[in-house]
């Protein structure tokens, strides 16, 4: 073993341990597994009540989709010229949310950011659920989702006799999103296997032994297992990194390859990716703050974790703000009257309220995070995490609706307002997302037990004999 370098005690305030409360390995197993192993009546009643509320919103989603399929997509407010409206807004919104999960699990892993270990599992789960919600919109906007598989995927078929047009960015999108979902699922499951083995070894219930026994694939933590596992984890992280950047780039191609003013710009891929990470981190923040509070995870999800996430929110929020400025500059500099009009119309036209909500929530409010006090205040970060997601939803709406309602010819100008079905379907997907997340938090280990143990066992030496000065950070 190479000698472990102890950290200077004076650095405790700026770099406190990631696992606090000097827990030994068994305590960590106990703390994280106890949530999963609790009996039905041991889980707080507020959990089951919340689950019932979100579950009924899922029923609303089911009702809306049934109504849509049985009646036709005319029940949505899409019209001419706004052929893409809430459905694609919601699609891009949900896909964007997912990006933070992959960023935390893959990119931060490659950068050896150890603070990711407490939050990566739940962020990855969030990715999966967000992509599921996103998938609903393109699938159902076809009107006949059971036939959509032939339209979307290159499946040989004899009744339709069609193939996809690979020159269209829409088919690229199908490939990007379905690959993204599959890879995220495999990555997430790979990370879960050692923890499922832990649960299998702990449980005394026959049913759980069988279920976890099968799911954990017979994992026994052998040195040979770990060697393959670590290599595989590195590869999955390595390919997920360009993948996550490609997914939102491809989503932005849907717009950027068209000739609509306001869409036809080369800035879209990086601008969309930054926005996606921005909104995704905000969503992770919302969920983690709730989980941290309800499940008492303060020693694992520390203020340092939250502070780091807020820094990323500040950076990506500023990148998004910079992209907004660039768009305005290029609209002026291009000399194209249509571009100029589009951007003036965006800020001062019929959707001015949406545009200014977006500027306020995405650019101005996150600037509070320049102050350490703000980055470490739980209430501030909770509120900002919500406003960020409102702002990012508006960003997609503004890009899509303002560009389509006012294109080249004034004779083809229009306006879009959502119908009640639009609104209820979107609320329904929020319900689905929360329901899936609640089920995950209760029935699977929400924190990667084996990874946290690795960090804790290392920190034991780094912080050996030092008092926990982190109390100054609350």
């Amino acid at each position: 073993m190479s000698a472990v370098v102890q950290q200077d005690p004076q650095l405790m305030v700026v770099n406190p341990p990631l696992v606090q409360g000097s827990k030994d390995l068994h305590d960590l197993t106990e703390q994280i597994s106890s949530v999963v192993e609790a009996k039905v009546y041991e889980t707080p009643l507020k959990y089951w009540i919340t689950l019932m509320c979100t579950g009924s919103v899922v029923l609303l989603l089911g009702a809306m989709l049934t109504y849509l399929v049985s009646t036709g997509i005319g029940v949505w407010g899409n019209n001419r010229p706004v052929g893409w409206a809430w459905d694609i807004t919601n699609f891009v919104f949900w896909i964007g949310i997912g990006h933070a999960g992959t960023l935390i699990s893959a990119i931060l892993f490659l950068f050896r950011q150890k603070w990711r270990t407490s939050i990566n599992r739940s962020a990855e789960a969030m990715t999966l659920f967000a992509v599921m919600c996103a998938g609903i919109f393109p699938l159902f906007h076809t009107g006949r989702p059971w036939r959509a598989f032939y339209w979307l995927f290159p499946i040989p078929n004899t009744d339709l006799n069609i193939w996809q047009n690979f020159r269209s960015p829409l088919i690229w999108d199908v490939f990007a999103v379905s690959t993204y979902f599959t890879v995220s699922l495999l990555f997430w499951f790979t990370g879960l296997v050692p923890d499922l083995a832990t649960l299998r070894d702990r449980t005394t219930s026959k049913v759980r032994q069988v279920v976890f026994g099968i799911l954990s694939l017979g994992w026994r933590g052998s040195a040979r297992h770990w060697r393959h596992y670590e290599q595989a984890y590195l590869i999955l992280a390595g390919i997920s990194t360009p993948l996550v950047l490609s997914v939102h780039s491809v989503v932005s191609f849907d717009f950027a390859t068209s000739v609509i003013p306001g869409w036809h710009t080369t800035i879209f891929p990086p601008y969309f990716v930054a926005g996606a990470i921005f909104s995704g981190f905000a969503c992770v923040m919302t969920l983690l703050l709730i989980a941290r509070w309800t499940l008492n995870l303060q020693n694992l999800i520390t203020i340092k974790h939250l502070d780091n996430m807020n820094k990323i929110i500040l950076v990506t929020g500023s990148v998004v703000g910079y992209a907004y400025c660039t768009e305005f500059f290029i609209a002026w500099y291009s000399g194209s009257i249509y571009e100029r009009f589009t951007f003036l119309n965006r800020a001062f036209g019929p959707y001015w309220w949406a545009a200014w909500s977006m500027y306020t929530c995405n650019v101005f409010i996150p600037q509070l995070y320049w102050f350490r006090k703000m980055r470490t205040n739980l209430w501030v970060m909770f509120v900002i995490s919500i406003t960020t997601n409102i702002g990012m939803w508006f960003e997609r709406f503004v890009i899509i609706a303002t560009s389509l309602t006012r294109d080249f010819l004034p004779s083809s100008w229009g306006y879009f307002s959502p119908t009640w079905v639009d609104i209820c379907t979107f609320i329904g997907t929020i319900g689905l997302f929360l329901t899936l997340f609640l089920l995950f938090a209760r029935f699977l280990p929400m924190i990667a037990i084996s990874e946290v143990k690795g960090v804790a066992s290392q920190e034991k030496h780094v912080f050996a004999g030092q008092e926990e000065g982190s109390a100054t950070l609350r």
Partner: protein
Amino acid sequence: MSETSDSAILIAQIKDKLGIGDDKVYAVMGEFAEPEDLVEAGRRIRAMGYTKIDAMSPFPVHGIDEAIGVPYSKIGWIAVCGALAGITTAQVLIYYVGKIDYPLIIGGKPLFDFTYSIPPTFELAVLFTAITTFLCTWGLSGLPRLYHPSMNYRSAHRASDDRFLLIVEADDPKFDAQKTAQDMRSVGANDVEVVEG
């Protein structure tokens, strides 16, 4: 009657092949409370001339691979093959669909061109790499399996909790139940046990 005995023989053969059964010895196992002790003990056991050594731990212990001689994982190379398979599949698919089976002129664009095939090709390369890596992780580890003789060790269940186990397998040429158990104790292992298959 003959069927039962047939299946009994078959089971015996399978067990023999897997090296399990009450009459078989799987290994000598011992446990440690700290990962550093495991690595140190592993190094010393290996220095004694044992070759079939394994370890079990709740998280990857750094240095254990070198200490007990775990070969380097070949997953990386297999993953590269997966990526190449993905690229080939995508290119063939897009060429076949666009140029051969369903040629449609849309917007005057060519029926096949490398540039517009890049995004789906990239995605399929990633997808195939991920699936290959995923399957190989378990396949190369000999998983999934429902039974493993190491489960018979008294504190095997703690290897996924807070204990670090060292194993010298019975098919090691230098293995001798009594002697090996003694060696294990001499490097500091607790609860040393001869584990049956």
